[in-house]
């Protein structure tokens, strides 16, 4: 009897470690970056949101630029529903001024942070623009991937980010947690 209890305890410990390891991989630790005006923002500022949409974007990437209107619309449609949007520019060659002008020209009304040393891109292992991470208030990644399945808006058949947000807001699990699409490589410092 004691031996079987011991085995059970070992099994439970192994299971707990595996569960913890699996979860920790999908959780993001807090970070702070400055926006294009030099104002510091932390991920923890958005803790009270129902979901946090972290979007790796670019000023010079044609794919990311094809999504400017869709990103602005998403922000407009979901901000009032308690979803926060944070853009991150991790491209070394795109200056804070360029990011600011680009945001203004394209009516990107959400906060855009400049990730000078790719700290956040490395933390989330982001590699492409546009690339989306949707987090819950505990900073767990609920969705990772594309905005939708076509750069051409009239060819879109799957609005993946909208679907994920609708499911989260409805308290349902996200049906498709991971998607992929072509995009521009994030131009890292090294």
């Amino acid at each position: 009897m004691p031996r079987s209890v011991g085995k059970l305890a070992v099994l439970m410990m192994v299971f707990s470690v595996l569960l913890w390891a699996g979860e920790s991989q999908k959780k993001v630790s807090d970070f702070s970056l400055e926006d294009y005006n030099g104002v510091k923002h932390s991920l923890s500022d958005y803790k009270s949101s129902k979901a946090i949409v972290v979007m790796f974007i670019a000023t010079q990437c044609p794919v990311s630029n094809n999504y400017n209107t869709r990103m602005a619309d998403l922000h407009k449609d979901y901000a009032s529903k308690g979803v926060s949007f944070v853009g991150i520019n991790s491209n070394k060659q795109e200056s804070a001024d360029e990011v600011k002008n680009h945001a203004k020209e394209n009516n990107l009304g959400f906060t855009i942070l400049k990730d000078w040393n790719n700290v956040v891109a490395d933390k989330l292992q982001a590699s492409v623009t546009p690339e989306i991470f949707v987090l819950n208030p505990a900073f767990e990644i609920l969705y990772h991937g594309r905005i939708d399945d076509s750069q051409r808006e009239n060819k879109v058949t799957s609005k993946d980010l909208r679907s994920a947000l609708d499911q989260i807001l409805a308290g349902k699990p996200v049906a498709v947690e991971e998607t992929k699409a072509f995009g521009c490589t994030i131009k890292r410092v090294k």
Partner: protein
Amino acid sequence: MAGLLRVMSGLLIAVLIAGCVSRSGEEKKISGDQEAAAQTTIEVTKLDDSDLNRLISQRNGRVLFLNVWATWCVPCVEEFPDLIRLHREYEGRPVDVVGVSADFDDEIDSKIIPFLKKHNVPFRTFVASFRRQEDFINGIDRSWSGALPASIIVNPQGKKTFFLVGKGTFDQFKNEIDKTLGGL
């Protein structure tokens, strides 16, 4: 004993001659393939999932270097001179340098061919024509996010030996191709 030596030398010479004939036949075939690849009139073929699978798995004794690029991708454009040099480097050897464009498959005439002409691209080019873009991305490598450019090298047995996301260099690619070629 002297007779046996004569017979053996004769056999050895015959084997060497046969080897040379077969080798020269193989070289002719290779150079024929490459002539077809370096088309005078540029053609871009649509590549679907069964084509990609065939391209990777049915190597007929040849190494595949496949680069995924797009006309809108700056590092891809920067990488092209090295890819052209790579193609020239392996002319006459069992290596296929192939490009796959990630532009839309209805942009062959409007964007892809003008780009290939402008850059004098001599190697065979396809355009990804998949119902789901994700299937192409995973078909190249399951760990690939879709960031361009990306390159793979496949050995003659259809096994991937190299995968790179981002811009590579001539020396880097040549080193990897040479390793994959081994004794070929």
